[in-house]
Each structure stands twice: as structure tokens, then as C-alpha cells.
């Protein structure tokens, strides 16, 4: 993106111990890890903790990543696994925090979602096939476009669009009637 070095170059620099290069990668994939973990945890504080753990882990295991084109997906997975592990460890029923995380004057026009509705949505997301869920989260939470999603996943933009549409449809089927907007 905008002239900064590609993942492969940055990974190679990281492997030589260049932390600055890793900083660029963290910025590049922070939202990916964040979206992935938040979908499991539904809690900002926990999510930040898990995302940090994700990037520390990824740094330590970076030499095991053979295919640098898979970096984004790899980080996505580590974040999700760490979040699931976190829930198991703390025996916490997901999600625990549904108060609006920002004071409402921060986002004046955003309609607030009730805690219950948010809980149901996160629950419904968990019941989607993984590829659909990931596509929806990349698209609507992380804010990627279809080309970026294609680079991340190796699927074609057209296939990803299909996946998003099917995911939306499935989500609507799963959500309880009265919860639908």
C-alpha cells in the first residue's frame, strides 16, 4: 500500500531483528487481528490484550511462516485462536461487555445496538461457516475492499463477493426474527 515495502520485504527485515519493520506490519494488520479477536470476545479491553499477545506470538514464530503472502491470514488466525483460548481459560461466557464503549456524543449519529442484539449477532457470526464469517468481518469490520480481501485469502474478488452475499443471507436466517432490524 502507498509505496511502503511489501510483506515479504518486511518479514525478511524482521527476521534480521528489525523491530521498526515489525512496527509497520503491526500497523498494517492491527485491525485484522482486532476484528478477528473482537468477534470472539466482544470486549474492547480483552481484545486489546489479545491483539498484543497475538503480535508478540507472531514475532516469536515469524520464522515458521513460509509463505509471506499468507501473513494477514496467519495473524487473523492467531488472534482468533488466542481469543478462543482466552475465553476457555477464563471460563467466560462470551460476550461480557455490551455497554457502548464510546460516550454517545463521540458518534452522534450511530444508532446504538442493544446489548442483547449485539450478543445475538456475535453468536450468529460464530455459527456461520468460517469462510463466510471471515469474509463478512474483513469487509464490514476491517473495512477491506474485495481486492484486498483477495490478496489476503487467495480467493478471487468475485468469489469473495459471493461469500459476503451468502454470509449476509445466512446471517439473516440465523438471527432471531425479532432481532432483525
Amino acid at each position, binding site marked *: 500500500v502507498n509505496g511502503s515495502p511489501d510483506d515479504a520485504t518486511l518479514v525478511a527485515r524482521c527476521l534480521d531483528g528489525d523491530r521498526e519493520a515489525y512496527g509497520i506490519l503491526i500497523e498494517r494488520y492491527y485491525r485484522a487481528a482486532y476484528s478477528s479477536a473482537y468477534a470472539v470476545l466482544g470486549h474492547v479491553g480483552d481484545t486489546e490484550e489479545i491483539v498484543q499477545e497475538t503480535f508478540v506470538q507472531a514475532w516469536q514464530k515469524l520464522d*515458521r511462516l*513460509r*509463505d509471506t503472502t499468507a501473513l494477514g491470514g496467519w495473524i487473523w488466525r492467531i488472534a482468533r485462536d488466542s481469543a478462543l483460548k482466552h475465553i476457555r481459560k477464563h471460563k467466560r461466557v462470551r460476550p461480557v461487555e455490551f455497554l457502548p464503549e464510546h460516550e454517545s456524543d463521540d458518534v452522534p449519529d450511530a444508532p446504538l445496538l442493544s446489548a442483547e442484539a449485539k450478543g445475538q449477532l456475535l453468536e450468529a457470526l460464530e455459527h456461520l461457516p468460517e469462510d463466510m464469517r471471515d469474509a463478512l468481518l474483513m469487509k464490514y469490520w476491517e473495512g477491506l475492499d474485495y481486492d484486498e480481501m483477495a490478496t489476503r485469502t487467495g480467493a478471487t474478488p468475485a468469489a469473495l463477493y459471493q461469500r459476503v452475499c451468502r454470509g449476509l443471507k445466512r446471517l439473516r436466517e440465523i438471527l432471531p426474527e425479532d432481532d432483525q432490524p
Partner: protein
Amino acid sequence: MNDNYDRTPEGKQVIALLEQAAPPVPDVHARAHEILAALPEAERPGRRLAPLVSMYAGVAAAAAALVLTVLIVVLPGEPEPGPHVAEQPPTLEHSPPDARPSLPMAAPYAPPELVTTVRSRSAEGWRVDAGLSHGLRAGDQLTGPEGRTVRVLAVGIFDARVADADWLRLGTRLVLPDASGPYLRVLAYRQAGGDPGSLFDLGAVFQPASTLEARAAGISSGRALGVIEVIPAILRDHNSDAQPSLAARAGLRRGDIVLEVNGHGVSDIAELVEALRWTRNSGILQVTVLREGQALQLRTQ
């Protein structure tokens, strides 16, 4: 039928709901700083190993066949209860749990059981979170609570579909009690190195051929990759059936020695992964293999 669902009124409502539930946008710059500060001080482990590993690569390749043979002899005996390495479901990282050669020379090894968890259900069946990259294969039988069993119908790279059973629930733990089969598969895979994403995606598992084998095949460098398993079909999408793998479609077989992939000479996994780039974009696989002394050109469709 799914066409443009995102533009229908219903689709838009679901999108609005998703967007409302989205997490706040983090300040990535500040957070990146904090994370960098939290990285462990020591130099990243791993790199240091590399020269050592390549030095021993030849030895390891030669030893691999031997070690596997020994294991095969040892394992079926009386597997001990085994360390419960898999106390939690297998991790789904894009890398093998321990990529570099903690080869079995380390200790007499009793294979752990493979534990997996039911994660979701679709119209086609239940999905569990272990797949090809954990050594699971279609046909494996998993044991659930009270000794009830269920069979794996189809495998994806990181997950699998199991047959329907009325006792299955989200979160049910399923165990493959004697995981020596998966263990050997993952072991073979680890010895070859490489990323499960790109290799299982192809539908074949490779292992460095022994130097003698390679020389006998006329490869003077003595370095070559042998195919040790072809996975006939891979589950790509939980809403449909498993699709024939690229390797199966091209007609690759166990025992083949790989000479060229997509026109590039290939003698190790790194070269293979590189040569597969084109396949990833085109969906076409061209392989030249040595089978029973004959060079053979294979190609998908």
C-alpha cells in the same frame, strides 16, 4: 440467487447491524508502539537455527526414512497413554506447531491423542476444528462422550466435516484415540517443511527423497522431493461437497518423484512453494514426475 444480496433492503439491514456491532476503530499507530515495547528483549529465536538446519538438512533427509521406519515399527506396539499435548483443540495457525526439527530423535515418542471440538453446523453436517494440517483424514473415526463414535466425512485444510449424529453439539470434544497415523503424517510434513496452506491446498504431501533414490533417478545433486501422499478431495466450503484436489486431478501418485512444477525445476519445498505461485493464480497445475523410471508430464484438466 445470492446475486447482489448486499444491495437488497434485507441485505442492507444486516450490513447496518454488522456495522453497528463493529468494534471502535483503534489507534493503530499508538498501539503498534506499545506492542513493540512489549516484545521480548531477546533476539527473535529461530533465525539462528537456520544455518544449523541447512547443514543438517542432508543428514536429516537421509535419517528421515530410517526414523519413520523405526517409528512405524515401534508405534503400533502398545502406545502408552501419551502426553496430552492436545489437551486443548489443535491450534489453527498457518504453521505446523513446531516447524523446525525437533525430529523424533529427541525422545521415544508416544503419540498424543488428537483432540478436536465441534465448532459449527451447516446444512451438510457438523464442522470440527482439526483438518489435514493436523493429520486428520477422511474416514478417521473420532470418539465422543460415553465412547460414542463418529466418522470424518471430508477434510479441509484446518477443519473437517463429520457425519451427523444426534448427540453432537456445538463444543462437543471429539478425540482420535490413537493418533499415531496423524502423528506420522504431520511428522512427515514437518520434515519436508513448508506451509500447510500452500501444500495441503495442492492436495499432496511431500518428503525429501533419499539421496540414493534421487541419484538413482538421475538427479545428480541428490536432492529431490517424493510424493508420500495424495489427498483425493478437499473440503473447501462447508456448504458443498469436498472437491477433487489439484494433485488428484493432475494424476499425481504416491511414490512419484517431482522433477518440475509449472516449468520450474524443483528440488525442495521452498522451490516447490515458489513454483506453485502460478498455480495459485491460474488454478492449473503442471508437473513433471518420475514414475517407475519414466518421466511423465501431468497436468490438470
